[in-house]
């Protein structure tokens, strides 16, 4: 039995996977994309929106080319993660939840990313950055285009 057969037998539509694909392609999940997915999967658009808005890795708003996710979990908090958030905010001039005007960075806070042994930590896109200090921030951000 092929993997495809498994999917079809239960009508598995993999809506989350499709939304992620759309996001990877267009940078976010737009209303048009959600409408198109609803049509092709034959499900109500509010179900698609419900899923798209539930998960923090999916965004219904346009995002920057690079997504900064600073861990706000306890181990990072105990190692002064707050100062990292302030440094990033200062460096790129936006606060968590915003995207820079040039579309280079989106700034988000995230829950534990499992890098607690080297807190404070953040992810930019899928790259891990650890043992952060305010002084390291400008150099790290400078490596992203």
């Amino acid at each position: 039995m092929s993997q495809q057969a498994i999917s079809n037998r239960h009508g598995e539509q993999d809506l989350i996977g499709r939304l992620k694909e759309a996001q990877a392609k267009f940078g976010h999940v737009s209303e048009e994309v959600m409408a198109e997915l609803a049509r092709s999967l034959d499900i109500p658009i509010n179900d698609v929106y419900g899923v798209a808005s539930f998960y923090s890795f999916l965004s219904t708003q346009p995002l920057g080319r690079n997504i900064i996710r600073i861990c706000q979990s306890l181990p990072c908090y105990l190692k002064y993660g707050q100062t990292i958030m302030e440094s990033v905010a200062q460096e790129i001039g936006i606060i968590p939840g915003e995207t820079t005007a040039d579309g280079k960075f989106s700034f988000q806070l995230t829950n534990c990313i499992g890098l607690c042994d080297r807190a404070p930590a953040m992810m930019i896109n899928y790259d891990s950055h650890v043992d952060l200090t305010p002084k390291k921030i400008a150099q790290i951000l400078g490596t992203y285009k």
Partner: protein
Amino acid sequence: MTFAEIQSRAKAEWAALEHGDKPRILIGSATCGRAAGAKAVLEATNAALAQHNLEANITEVGCIGPCYAEPLMDIIKPGRPRICYSQVTPEIVPWLIEDYIINDNPHSDLALGTIGDGSLDGIPRLFDLPMLKPQVRIALRNCGTIDPEEINQYIARDGYRGLVRALSMTPEEVIEEIKKSGLRGRGGAGFPTGMKWEFCRKSPGTVKYIICNADEGDPGAFMDRSLLEGDPHAVLEGMLISAYAIGATEGYIYIRAEYPLAIDRLKIALRQMTEYELLGDNILGSGLNFHLKIKEGAGAFVCGEETALMASIEGKRGMPRSRPPFPAQSGLWGKPTNINNVETWANVSAIMLRGTAWYASYGSDKNKGTKTFALAGKINRTGLIEVPLGISLKEIVYDIGDGIPDGKRFKAVQTGGPSGGCLPASQLERPVDYESLTEAGSIMGSGGMVVIDEDTCIVDVARYFLAFTQSESCGKCVPCRLGTKQMLNILENICQGKGKVEDIDLLLKVSQQIKAGSLCALGGTAPNPVLTTIRYFQDEYEAHIKEKRCPALVCPELISYYILADKCQGCGICLRACPTEAITGGKRMVHVIDQSKCNKCSTCLNVCPDRFGAVVKVSGEEIKVPKKPVPITVSKPDTYTQR
């Protein structure tokens, strides 16, 4: 090729590697190692070897545990013991290559310890060190030793022999074996694994699923990431054994998107299993059919809850539902489903290989085997550990973790993430097992242990956890959605000095309502951090509420900074550094902080030279200082005598 042929080839390859005439170099390349610079170490190693025209077998291995000492590099010279070097930098690599590989000086100054057989003068045996001596490696048996992207290395170390043994038994016998081992779910709840399998096996239906829960999300927990990055086949073999025992033909690994390296290594592992006919139809000619898929999460903590996780696999919002029906009766797409977490599966493959008596020889009466923990927070040796159940918290914090940095005092250890609690020094002798931690008001949880020192405010920690559960509540149950918000508001008020005497009782009351009125464990355990901190640290709550004082000097609204007139040298460093221009002063003038402008950022305290020590932080008291800058009357510190 039969499994016996695969195995004998893998063992021959491994023996050639282990007993060959080339040196071996192992580089810890899990996320922790990579983040610490393992890739640069790898490049430097290749460059140094090329420069000296040397050949060596380099293996990128998973994490052996002492993440604080990463990057780790092990060198095994033929006929010599394996030496583990810590905090290796690209600058150190050429010395190690030249001095040890070429000139036979093992650089004991840079070595953490030797591993395995043999010893060297001046270098301790790694597993005799206090941090590793109490540890037992069952789930992590191969982490740091094998190449996780090479199935042959897993097979060479007896991998998949547990599966072969299981296939020679009846499914019922396999379940009996797991029951006898005493293994309990390592995801946190501690439900007996064999019994869970039996429910699922006995559920009527021809299509059954098994799911690996790799949606590790507790703040401070990274055990499952490390295990999947270091030895994915240990987990996958466990899943195959369970598929056979339960009669499942399809399975999923639900893994969080935040773990890209673990996902990559799982994909490689699945491909290699398929090549060896360890996945697909008629596995190893046994008639077992099993298909396995990876499902990546999309960033939702609640999806670690089993019913929410299944909803997410089905492509829906990750919202929990009521049980019964339990997943074993009606789970994924309404079919009988068995869910275990990553570590549980890795124990299953070990048990089937080495037997129940061996496994049950570790641990205590009702808590057999080992448990992995992630040590983080205010502790000297952060990292991943695996210890027999029943070990005391004290041994973990002080022997393995080497206590608190900077000579600070231990305040509490937080176990079980947002579902757990903070246990104070009086509980340190407590054995770490499911019942004991529950009795103390916390839970075992998946294995995060965050150590908190005297500089941490316990009310602030409780506030932090409520902020977490409040934002991660899926919103389905009103007591969880609104109750956590109310608790958070109360805790924020207390931290801001706006707490009322009746708030503690109110917190206790709302806690009971949230516990009683929530469907899933996220809501059902959300009040635990508050309940345990009230239980053990009520005096700190009361200091905040009654005296408007934060004993740990953390809560910004309750602390003040002052510049001491008899210590200030008028150097102006703090004045220039203050981001809110709250400090006034002048040359040889005592500087003064305008309390109405101060944002409590602590910059002045941090920049004031240690030899002056003129800035103090206090809570609940006022220090008498000049209202505006006045000339300095004390002499300079070189002639200044301490009172």
